[in-house]
Each structure stands twice: as C-alpha cells, then as structure tokens.
C-alpha cells in the first residue's frame, strides 16, 4: 500500500520531536512529502492510505493553520478526522491531561495530533495511549512538522539543506519552531545562526550547535535562508524588550537589513506574521524572496507524509481491545 523502499523504515511509534531523528528518517519524510506536493495540486487529491483509521486533532491551544493543515492531510489520505479543541472539551471542566488521554484512548483512535501549551505535555500524553501521537507543538519545546515543512520548502528552492547558512531571527527563547529547526537543520548539515536581542536568546543555546548574533546585519551576512519568528507582543510587558518600535528598528526584517544576506536569500516565517513588528510588510509580500505562502502549502504535504509513515507502524488491530 505504500511506495516506501524496504530499507527505509521509520522506527518510531510517535513523532514527538525532531531531536533523535536520523538524517535518513528526515529524508524519508521529506521524500514522501514531495510526492504529496504533486498530488495536492491535482483535482483528485485523495489517496487511500488511512482508510478506516481515526485521527483526532487534540488542541489544548488555539490554532488555525496547523489544525486545518492536519485535518486536510488526514482527509486526503482517506482517514476519519475529528477536531477537539480545548474550549469544547472536558479539560475546561477540570479533567487532568492523563484522564483526557485515557478517555480518548478508550475510543480507539489510530493517530492523535496533539498541541499543548506546556513543554513535555504531548510526551506525557503519548505515554498513556496505545495509538500513534504527533506533536503539533508543545510549549517552547518542539514543533516537528513545522521544521519538516520548512526543510521541504528550503530543499525545493535551494536543492539541498547541507551547507546552507540559515539565520533564525527573533524570539528564540519562547520558540518551539526554532528548537525543532535547530535540530533538523543541524542533523542535515546546515549551519545555523540565531539573531536576537540577548533577552530572547535562551541560555547555553550555543551548546545546541548554533552561532549567536545580537546584530541583524552582522548575523545575516551571507545567509541563504532568513527565518523570522513570530514576536509575541504580550512579552513586551515582561521586559524582554522595551517597545515594538525599538524591536522593529533593530530586529525587524526590512530591505536594509536584508541587504547583508545573499542576494537570493529566501525569507521564511512560520506565521501568523506581525507585519511591522518582526517583518516589514513589503518584504513579507516580496514574491521573488518570500517563501511564506509556499510554507503553508508544504505543510499539508509534510503532514500527509507523517501520518502515512506512522500509520505503517500501527498494528492491524488495537492493543488492549479484548
């Protein structure tokens, strides 16, 4: 039922993070996703890979694009997709995370896609269920499918990942996107620079294999990829930076700062963007430079690949069902 080469297997029950994945495993996911990019552009976008399988999108934190992207991915593979969000679930009624997991587990889902505001929340839940779990973002820890879709976007535009110089700019401290990207890009042999005010650089992050810069022009010099992170303006009153105006002046991506990157540098943003805060509107909309819309398209393909690869490892019938 799949086109996977026999030697390329994905020996993980869950996709909780990029950390720990091998270059081959990442390449496998990207290669599979590549085939879905083509399929998603056809009139008939369906492929019967997950027929009969139940996928639950369990989001403890609001999300539009990631949830929609997973929902489309599941449906295009023929699975049954159910969305549960925190406002309609029993979490609000005081149920613990583990109780929620046990309850859902009893309904025999095949894949749970989970987003949780606390780092480690998705892993905790995965330990209590029999199905596969995909991390849709946990706290400031990981967002593996975002890193994969970023990698696919880069690979399609630049033809490779190895050897590229990638700048990740902005609120690295609170960013799960940054952490997953650091793991993935390092695993694939890219060189990573983080650019932010010191208050938004997490302690000892150099140990994760990155170079740290506090100046945009200096950090962007000769970069192939410029990844902007979303700045959460609610952070402003907690003294990470003094004002939006000052932040944009020093760290917002505009043409002047972008000029120190390579002329063909690709601009990326995981969305949703704050125009005029971390990125100048014109730069964001620059069709020649910005891959921001393409990233969204790659998201669906990457999530299809993740669902497919994990579904292969699912047992034919559910454990614990007597």
């Amino acid at each position, binding site marked *: 039922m799949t086109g996977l080469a026999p030697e390329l297997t994905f020996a993980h029950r869950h996709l909780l993070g990029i950390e720990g994945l091998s270059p081959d495993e990442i390449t496998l996911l990207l290669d599979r996703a590549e085939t879905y990019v083509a399929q998603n552009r056809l009139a008939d976008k369906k492929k019967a890979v997950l027929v009969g399988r139940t996928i639950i999108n369990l989001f403890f934190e609001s999300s539009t694009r990631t949830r929609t992207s997973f929902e489309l991915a599941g449906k295009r593979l023929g699975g049954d997709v159910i969305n549960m969000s925190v406002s309609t679930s029993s979490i609000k009624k005081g149920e613990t995370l583990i109780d929620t997991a046990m309850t859902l587990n009893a309904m025999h889902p095949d894949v749970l896609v989970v987003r949780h505001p606390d780092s480690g929340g998705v892993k905790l839940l995965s330990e209590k269920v029999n199905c596969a779990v995909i991390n849709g973002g946990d706290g400031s820890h990981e967002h593996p499918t975002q890193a994969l879709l970023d990698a696919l976007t880069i690979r399609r535009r630049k033809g490779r990942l190895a050897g590229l110089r990638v700048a990740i700019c902005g609120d690295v401290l609170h960013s799960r996107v940054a952490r997953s990207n650091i793991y993935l890009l390092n695993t694939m042999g890219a060189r990573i620079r983080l650019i932010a*005010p*010191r*208050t938004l650089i997490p302690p000892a992050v150099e140990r994760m294999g990155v170079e740290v810069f*506090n100046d945009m022009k200096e950090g962007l010099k000769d970069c192939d990829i410029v990844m902007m992170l979303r700045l959460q303006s609610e952070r402003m*009153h*907690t*003294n*990470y*930076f*003094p*004002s939006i*105006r*000052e932040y944009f*002046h*020093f760290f917002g991506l505009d043409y002047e700062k972008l000029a120190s990157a390579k002329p063909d540098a690709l601009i990326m943003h995981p969305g949703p963007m704050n125009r005029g805060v971390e990125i100048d509107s014109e730069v964001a909309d620059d069709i020649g430079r910005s891959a921001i819309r393409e990233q969204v398209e790659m998201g669906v393909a990457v999530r299809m690949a993740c669902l497919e690869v994990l579904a292969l490892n699912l047992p034919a019938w559910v454990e614990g069902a007597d």
Partner: protein
Amino acid sequence: MGGAGKPGAPPASVAYVNARLLDPASGLDVQVDARGGLLTDGEIISDVGAGLFSDGAPDGVQVVDCGGHCLAPGLVDMRAQLREPGEEHKETLASAGRSATAGGISTMVCLPNTDPVLDDMSVVEFIARRARKVGLTKVHPYGAVTKGLKGEEMAELGMLAESGAVAFTDGDRAVANARVMSKALSYAGTFNLLIIQHPEEPSLAGMGSMNSGETATRLGLTGIPREAEIIIVERDIRLAEMTRGRLHFAHLSTAAAIEAVRKAKARGLSITCDTAPPYFALNETAVGDYRTFTKLSPPLRAESDRQAVVDGLGDGAIDAIASDHAPQDEDAKRLPFAQAAFGGIGLETLLCVSLELYHNGHMSLLDVIGRLTHQPAALLDLPAGRLEKGAAADLVVFDPDRGWKVDGDRLLSKSKNTPFDGRPVQGRVLRTVIDGRTVFERQAAGAGT
C-alpha cells in the same frame, strides 16, 4: 571669569608653557619650562611635550604661561544631577556649567531624574542641544533604565543610545527588582551598553535618613544599614555574571561592597564602580547636630568604611571619582533631618577634596587625576580625559597646593548645599579650557573666589 572667544568663533592657536604636564592615560608627569608644554590648534590639541617650544612658540600663537602649575586634561565628572528640565530653581545647565568650569570639569554626565525623565529620545536630544548652546562644560546624558524610573518596564535603551545616551541608570533610585535588573543587563548587552546601578535596596533602606549605627541611635534617627548597599552590589554582580552584562556601581560607600567589587574584578567580570568625595573625606560624625547638608544618598558611613573607600581608590578597586552633584534648594534642606532632601553639591569641590588623597599620601597626583579624567571617560567610551595629539583641547590648569576655604555661598551652583561648607582645602583651579577656548580663568591673587 575671563572668557576668551565666544562659542562659534574659531579659537586661537594657543601655546601653554611653563607647566607640570599631567596625563594619567599615558603616565606623563613632567615639569616643563617656557620651552615645553602643549599647543592647541583651534579646538584640538596639536602637540604636547617637553621640548615643544625650544625654538620659541610659533609665530602668531597666543602664549599662556601656566606659572609652573599643573596642566591636566579637563576633569570628566561621570555623575551629576543638573535639574534641567523640571527643577530650574535648583540648577540649570547654565548654572551647572559655570560651577563645573570653575571646578575644572570639562565633561560631565547628567542623571536622567529630571522632569520629564530622560527616558525618551526627544528629551535626551534636548539636553545635548541645550548644553551646546550654553557652551560651557560638555554635557552627556544618561538614559533611564526603566520608563519613568519606575523600575518596571525597560526604556528604549537601543534607540536612546543612538540619540546620545552614554549609559543607563535610574539615577538616584535602584533598579530594585531582580528580574527587571537582569533583563536590563541582558538587553543592554545586546548593544554593549553599560548599566549603572544606584546600589541601595529600597525595602531595607526604608525611611532611613543616615547611616545605621551609634550616631543614628544617639540622634534618634532611623538608620540605613550598610547591608542595603551590600545586598544590591552582591546580587547585581551575580546578575551581571549570569547575563554577561556590563555593570557599574555608583558612589560606593561601604567596605564590604568595595570588597565585593574587588573580588568580582579579580574573577574577570566586567564590573566597575565609582565613589564621590564625601565618602572618602567625611564620615557619619559630620552629621553632627542634624546638619542636613550632610544628608546624602548613600549616607555618610562609619570611619572604617571611609578608610575602605580610600583603600579602594588606592588599589584600583574603585575606578573613578564623581562629584555626585545633587543640588537642593533651601526649602528642601531647611527641614527636620528626617524630612530633608538627600544630596549635596560637588562640582567645585571635586578636585580640591580629591586632592586630599594626594596630600595625605594615599595616592600619587597622577593617580588621583586619572580617577577624575581618563578612567571615567574610558568607562563611558567618551573621547575625553587625555592630553594627546588630535584630542579635544579640554584642559585644566590648577595649583594643587593653594589653600582656600569652602564657602557654600560663594560657590557658583544655584544651590548652596555643600557638605564641605567651611572646610579648609588645598588645590585651586586657575583656568579651564574647553575645545580650545578658555571658559574659566581665576583672577590673579584671588584667594576665596
């Protein structure tokens, strides 16, 4: 005062001869006669040395005979409250400029505790503009660390620095919250900016009005314990180490705080500090009979602390001496001690009181002048405090031995609250030159003024 030339007109070329040349930055300390000295060309120093005028001064050059007295870089005062804008009845940039030039100060840095606070680019630029118009001592502003000096939200440090703020401090208030302080140190580090802390834990200092101890007890005044200073110094050294930020403590007054800085320096941390003349020249007994002019922040401490300040200056634990000029009008000081305002003026007594360290044999003359010139300039990255070719011709001529008696009423500051009132001192400024122009000249044979 004999002003030669007006701001705007290019100053004449001047040969300063017959002087003891003192340049602490280069270690130069040499007595020269009429054949040596220093030559200015317009606003800059064009040459300096012993044999400079061995063939006589160049034609058309004005010659100033320094009478064998000391010729040093103009003093750099890294801490002065100038009260403008907002409290012009206490001091203005013009009155402070007159007082500072009479004190040999060619560059001073003002605190942001004005009204409005210097937490906005427009106010920072206003100070620079006004000071240039006054045309006396050069003034650089500090920017506020937190908006409104409230100790809560960080001010726009990066943009304020671009507007001319040379470093950041909440003035006479401590940044008390540890989280705010650590974020400020960290954020400032982004742009390699210096944070200057007023080290006093406000919750411990409370409503105290003088040093905690026997004198306070006898006078029935609430004390400010030394620990209020020590706790913040020790805490902030930790925070600076954690954040790799650049940190400077203003006006240290206690032995333990100086020792903490000494140890931090030995560990290679980017920590510096200054003190002010009251803390090495006076102790808490100066409060005497409730003399509110001696109510300072931090308070005058015990004799053992005063000695530790002297030692700290001697061994380099303390980097600089600042005037800590804090003008208060009579209404603010003619009050019961507990209600009186903190602060003393210090621009005109900075040099003479500092010279006590030299006269008493604690430091060489060159070292004392170093703490008043190139060392504070280096801390703030100011192009000042050196006698070198190409530098701005900011100079002071002084007689280190001439005695006089401090008389508050005859000082040029608008406020008269000097803690040194009536003190016999040694060391008189004779001439102050800024950008090649003499902006202050003491009338001959004038003891007193």
